């Protein structure tokens, strides 16, 4: 059954809805080109689609089968890390490229080539900055004819540059126009016939689409021919403006001929200015908010106060800081003695407010210490008394006395089926992990200098003879033996359960933990799993998923497969506590693996340098007591390497660019560490 035919207006609306924004939100004018619409409808949209390219169940090559390969190729060609998302038609938002989930049925050998070609077009748009200028994007957004014309010219331009840089691409890219799938013409998702294309359009498709039934374009095609020639000779300077200029000229020409937008070849994808504009609009809005001062912060404080203000919990005489006092505190001036925290300066209004409301302002006195913090003041999820940890203040060069408190409550629980589902869904990977871990079970090596053994230790025998000859007593340990002994390794894995992991990352962490746990079960090494997240410096929760002395049972399985995200990442405290759990282990090698999705950050002053330096100090402290700390980071930020190196040291972390590989990489990292 053919898909419903949409007018350009409806198509735009559908696109906007898909991305969750409206034209009004972006401040863009609605489309007013009625004449072009009419021409479009007359020429194309009343024709029945020849072929529905997204055909439901039947399809050609799927993206997931070649996604890694494509990402590898695009990254090698472009030099930047290239991420691939899903969209049909293909497009880009300048951050990643989006390709269709599948090629149209039937599967053909050239399907991979089509994915490559479509990806190169979109990658070229972002590589050469064709879709960056806000003014250009606004024009393209408001005019469907201009957008399509610009698209065809831009496609020519980026393909030419790809071929100039990588001459080997000329042959495969030259094959694409001859492919039935690649050369199919579409207006958004709707296929339109290749035959009957107006002569005015034909020169635009040279090298992009081939149709034997097109006649000579005649004089109608002169304008397009000229534009094509201009673009074929254009250099990189101001190219976006040149493309728009040429597209505008053509647009006027098409208007005179009462033509609508030229359809686009399937492999060219689509340009979605609204995707990029909406990001720009959000950035702009955030920037404007920021310029207005600390209003968002005040809103946050108010929101927190509203949420936490339970009658009776807040002491009636709790002093509330005035705005002036809060400002003085932030600027490092004399804080109110009655409300200053134990470690003095640099505190955050949000934090003060939250504490005042949730725990009572009395806790935040200058003498805050275990003695003054009554058990009743901080409600705990279990009987765990918590443990205080100092925190390193790099700016002041001192430890803040007992600034954090870590509890180790049991992790959240849920249905056992979640665990079974993960095991079932990842059976092939699991088998591989088990097989690889099996090889780690024992340490095998030759040990020389043994009193008895399967072979003579030649070096020692020679030494003994030389000793004898020199008149000295020889050592009688003259044999070497092949020994297999159980490894002496204890491993604690802790995963980030801060709010930022909610969703996909949490799901991946869950899968990773389950696969890792199944592998470690094979190995029989002492190991523990924890999750971390804090709602307050004095309420850092290191959720126990499986303790060192805990056996695997249903309760453990349930906790491992039902992680819950909440809170922030006061990582220094968590590393200190986890290291203390490892420090008491009798094994000679103790490894702490930290899985995190971002910087160590808390809502309060634990941000930027402070968080990084405290965590780096915690890692150094752990190393001093013989605990090797290794971080597996899934932070998508480009600059993450800088802080990861600072905290963990070069070679002591692994940044996963493809977050989806976490479940497989976590066991691999462990294997590398102990292998």
């Amino acid at each position: 059954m053919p898909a419903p035919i949409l007018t350009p207006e409806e198509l735009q609306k559908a696109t906007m809805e898909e991305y969750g924004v409206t034209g009004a939100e972006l401040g863009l004018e609605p489309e007013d080109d009625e004449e072009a619409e009419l021409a479009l409808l007359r020429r194309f949209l009343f024709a029945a689609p020849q072929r529905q390219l997204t055909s439901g169940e039947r399809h050609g090559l799927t993206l997931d089968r070649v996604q890694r390969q494509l990402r590898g190729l695009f990254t090698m060609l472009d030099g930047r890390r290239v991420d691939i998302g899903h969209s049909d038609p293909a497009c880009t938002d300048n951050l990643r490229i989006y390709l269709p989930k599948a090629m149209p049925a039937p599967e053909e050998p050239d399907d991979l080539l089509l994915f490559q070609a479509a990806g190169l077009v979109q990658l070229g748009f972002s590589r050469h900055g064709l879709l960056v200028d806000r003014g250009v994007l606004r024009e393209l957004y408001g005019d469907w004819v201009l957008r399509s014309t610009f698209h065809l010219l831009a496609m020519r331009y980026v393909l030419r540059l790809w071929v100039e840089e990588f001459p080997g691409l000329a042959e495969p890219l030259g094959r694409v126009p001859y492919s039935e799938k690649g050369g199919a013409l579409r207006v958004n998702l709707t296929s339109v016939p290749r035959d009957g294309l107006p002569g005015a359009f034909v020169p635009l498709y040279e090298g992009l689409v081939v149709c034997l039934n097109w006649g000579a374009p005649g004089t109608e095609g002169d304008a397009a021919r000229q534009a094509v020639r201009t673009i074929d000779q254009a250099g990189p300077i101001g190219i976006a403006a040149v493309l728009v200029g040429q597209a505008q000229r053509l647009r006027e020409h098409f208007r005179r001929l009462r033509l609508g937008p030229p359809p686009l070849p399937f492999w060219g994808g689509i340009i979605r200015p609204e995707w990029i504009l909406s990001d720009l609009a959000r950035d702009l809005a955030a920037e404007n908010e920021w310029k207005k001062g600390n209003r968002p912060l005040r809103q946050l404080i108010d929101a927190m106060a509203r949420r936490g203000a339970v009658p009776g919990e807040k002491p009636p005489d709790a002093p509330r800081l005035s705005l002036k006092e809060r400002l003085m505190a932030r600027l490092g001036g004399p804080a109110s003695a009655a409300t200053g925290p134990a470690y003095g300066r640099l505190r955050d209004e949000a934090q003060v407010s939250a504490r005042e409301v949730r725990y009572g302002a009395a806790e935040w006195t200058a003498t805050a210490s275990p003695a003054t913090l009554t058990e009743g003041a901080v409600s705990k999820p279990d009987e765990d008394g918590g443990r205080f940890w100092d925190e390193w203040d790099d700016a002041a060069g001192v430890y803040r006395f007992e600034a954090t408190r870590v509890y180790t409550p049991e992790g959240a629980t849920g249905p056992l089926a979640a665990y079974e589902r993960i095991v079932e869904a990842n059976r092939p990977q699991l088998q591989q992990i088990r097989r690889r871990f099996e090889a780690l079970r024992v340490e095998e090596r030759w040990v020389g200098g043994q009193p008895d053994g399967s072979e003579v230790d030649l070096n020692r025998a020679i030494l003994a003879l030389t000793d004898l000859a020199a008149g000295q007593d020889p050592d009688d340990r003259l044999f070497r033996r092949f020994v297999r002994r159980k490894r002496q390794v204890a491993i604690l894995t802790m995963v980030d359960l801060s709010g930022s992991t909610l969703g996909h990352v949490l799901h991946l962490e869950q899968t990773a933990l389950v696969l890792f746990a199944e592998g470690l079960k094979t190995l029989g090494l002492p190991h523990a799993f924890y999750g971390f997240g804090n709602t307050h410096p004095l309420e850092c929760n290191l959720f126990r998923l499986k303790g060192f002395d805990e056996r695997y049972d249903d309760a453990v399985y349930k906790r491992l497969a039902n992680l819950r995200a909440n809170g922030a990442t006061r990582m220094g405290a968590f590393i200190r506590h986890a290291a203390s759990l490892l420090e008491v282990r009798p094994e000679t090698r103790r490894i702490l693996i930290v899985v995190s999705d971002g910087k160590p950050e808390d809502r309060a002053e634990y941000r930027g340098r402070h968080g990084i330096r405290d965590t780096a100090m915690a890692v150094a402290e752990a190393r001093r007591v013989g605990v090797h700390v290794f971080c597996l980071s899934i932070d998508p930020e480009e600059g993450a390497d800088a802080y990861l190196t600072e905290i963990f040291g070069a070679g002591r972390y692994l940044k996963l660019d493809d977050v989806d590989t976490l479940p497989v990489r976590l066991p691999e990292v462990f294997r590398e560490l102990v292998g």
Partner: protein
Amino acid sequence: MVYYRPHGNEIAVFETAARRRLPVLLKGPTGCGKTRFVRYMAERLGRPLITIACQEDLAAADLTGRFLLEGGSTVWRDGPLTRAVREGAICYLDEVVEARSDVMTVLHPLTDDRRTLPLDRLGVELTAPDPFLVVISYNPGYQSVSKELKESTRQRFVSLAFDYPPAEIEAEIVVAEAGCTAEVAAQLVKIGRGSRNLRSHGLGEGASTRLLIYAGQLVLAGLPLFDACEAALVGSLTDDAEMTKALRELLKSVLGPAPGR
């Protein structure tokens, strides 16, 4: 003279360190020219070079020396390190983190102001002459926790960070070393640099300059360029089927399709 194409201030730094008798640490990815650089500097400074490839069974005694039996009597045989100290040579320990930890202990008194080598079995302590220099190298990539360079060792060295040279210089090196044409070298370098974009995005390491030279040599020996690249670059970089395909696509993008395929 050994061929070496400088691409920074490494020669000046090394010469100054050698003049000041300061030990040198070279770090950088595999096949980027660390060993070649040391050979070149040894020749340039006119000092003998003793190279030791470290591996996990290398013990301190293998470096210092041992007594051997010779015709019923014992004879002391110097190890390479002792020989280097006696001769005032440059002693280069390649991939030093692979060696056993007692190797580092032997190196410590040689790499500070004492510059001595105690030989317990002989009951002597050798003092290194001025030209003696310790140079160590390692690849600070992904390591096992048992194979990290300790802080106490690292801080005894002047360090020189190596990386692959810029494209034009690397092409020049490939031409000089492999003897292939500049055009072939440029294509090899383009492939090499492309593969390095995948470092830690799917490949452990990108193609080293050494591999590019191998490929160039295969081409010079008559192998078609595509086949030479496939043999020297694709198979050596990964066993991962998808990354292998991606690398082949990169070859095609740079070289065009392989003839007959």
